[in-house]
């Protein structure tokens, strides 16, 4: 695993929008003064007339996107997760979710890997917020390959979609010839029999690293990668839980309302199974480098390994 290619999923978002711009003449991109950071700048350069900078006004931006979708556009609304899902929550709910409009929200800088900006900008609540809106698809890709596939799937899906991207560069793990992406379908990225680790976003890589370490201790961990948190791939999770009997969830998000909660909702309904939820334990983040933060909050491979080992 020496020279692993690393790309931030926000880069994948911008690059894919640029590609899709050629295929979908009605695709438009909106930003709130953060095009340089959300990486939609590459789309803006190619299609300046189809890029709309709304200024620092996220609530209005969501409404404008709603209006654009009602006159035939496919708007991709971009901002940091904190502002897209947090600040503009009610606009997303009432102006986009309730009328079930064809608006795609590309939220970058999610979770603690925002890093140095600190807790005010580290959104660990967006999955919980967006998941609670009826009809909203929520996706959190693990790497460049999955992020590109998710953006493509979003444009083909008719209805509102929330996509969560990260700021920090992450290893590419899905560059397999047989990799397939479908909204609502997870992937088993490593098979095992003793414990299931369900992970999303950048934590899939940590889960794989942890599984490797567990294997050295004679523990066989199955790693399930979940990009679509809603609708959740219940079948895949139940099937894996049935095999291992124990489930650990890992996410760069609060353990309240996110992937861990979604998995618990699924298992408590279909197959009650003990679940250990790793993530932000009802606390705010803080300033620091992305790697230091991931380590401090136990979301790197070592941290996940220790937590799983201790729990088993």
């Amino acid at each position, binding site marked *: 695993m020496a020279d692993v290619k690393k790309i931030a999923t926000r880069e994948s978002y911008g690059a894919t929008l640029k590609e899709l711009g050629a295929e979908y003449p009605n695709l438009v991109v909106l930003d709130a003064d953060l095009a340089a950071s959300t990486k939609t700048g590459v789309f803006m350069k190619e299609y300046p007339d*189809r890029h709309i900078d709304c200024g620092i006004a996220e609530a*209005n931006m969501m409404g404008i996107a*709603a*209006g654009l979708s*009602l*006159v*035939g556009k496919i708007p991709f609304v971009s901002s940091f997760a904190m502002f897209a899902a947090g600040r503009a929550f009610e606009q997303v709910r*009432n102006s986009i979710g*309730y009328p079930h409009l064809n608006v795609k929200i590309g939220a970058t800088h999610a979770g603690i890997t925002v890093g140095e900006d600190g807790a005010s900008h580290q959104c660990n609540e967006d999955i919980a917020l967006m998941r609670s809106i009826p009809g909203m698809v929520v996706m959190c890709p693990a790497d460049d390959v999955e992020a590109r596939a998710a953006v493509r799937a979003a444009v083909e899906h008719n209805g509102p979609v929330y996509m969560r991207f990260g700021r920090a560069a992450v290893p590419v793990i899905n560059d397999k010839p047989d990799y397939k992406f479908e909204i609502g379908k997870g992937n088993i990225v490593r098979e095992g029999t003793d414990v299931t680790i369900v992970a999303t976003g950048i934590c899939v890589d940590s889960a794989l690293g942890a599984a490797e370490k567990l294997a050295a201790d004679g523990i066989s961990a199955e790693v399930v990668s979940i990009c679509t948190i809603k609708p959740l791939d219940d079948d895949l999770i139940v099937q894996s839980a049935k095999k291992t009997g124990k489930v650990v969830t890992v996410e760069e998000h609060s353990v309240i309302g996110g992937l861990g909660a979604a998995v618990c909702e699924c298992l408590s309904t279909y197959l009650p199974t003990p679940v250990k939820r790793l993530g932000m334990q009802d606390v705010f983040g803080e300033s620091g480098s992305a790697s230091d933060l991931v380590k401090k909050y136990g979301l790197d491979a070592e941290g996940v390994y220790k937590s799983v080992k201790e729990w088993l």
Partner: protein
Amino acid sequence: MNNLELQKRANDVRIGIVKAVHSAKAGHPGGSLSAADLFTYLYFEEMNIDPQNPDMEDRDRFVLSKGHTAPGLYATLAHRGFFPVEDLTTLRKLGSYLQGHPTIQIPGVDMASGSLGQGISAAVGMALGAKMDGKDFRVYTLLGDGEIQEGQVWEAAMFAGHRKLDNLCVIVDNNGLQIDGAVADVCSPYPIDEKFKAFNFHTINVDAHDFDALRAAFAEAKNTKGMPTCIVMHSVKGKGVSFMEGVADWHGKAPNDDEFAVAMADLERIGAELEKAGEA
């Protein structure tokens, strides 16, 4: 349509509002009645719409940003032929498509609304989309004077002014009252016209209950190029129903049976006078 015809339609709309809200035992009559003439003017005179084809691609759009006055919009759409007038009394009842606030599934409704401050942004998006595609349909949105206390209204106004959306017409129903009292006392939005002017709008002040004035204002808005227009419409809350006129308390409650009888008598008297004026 001449003024007398418009007045008759507006009175029918008012009757529809009162019947719907009475039947629902809830709803917002005050701001529906203050905007009844405006609703009537837009749907019977101003807008390019087709009740037989509510989703006509290049129709003019209307967003009721002050969504709580849905009874006014519904009564107008019903009388314009988008759905049966009889359905108005199903308002707010379980199973009815006439929800308490506008939903996108209702024939003729262009955008869901009800959470104040949001409709104007959707209208701005529609106007922007029309400009991007070189289409010449127009977009109208109605806001309450209390609603403009919401910050999002000014985000939307700044954007519309910046983008010179001259296909957008914002109307503020300045009836002067909100739930907690006079807008001037609660948190004054005045001067409304000057505020929109500062956001690069062309502004027009108009008497909300004078069809000649409305006609002139909308013609002026249509002829204004290079900037959006804001029509500040000076209205009487509860207009047409004697005991509701100018009373904040009638913002969001339904008349009881006795009050309903008085309200209907008021409106039927107005209707009879209009009929007589037509025969004269």
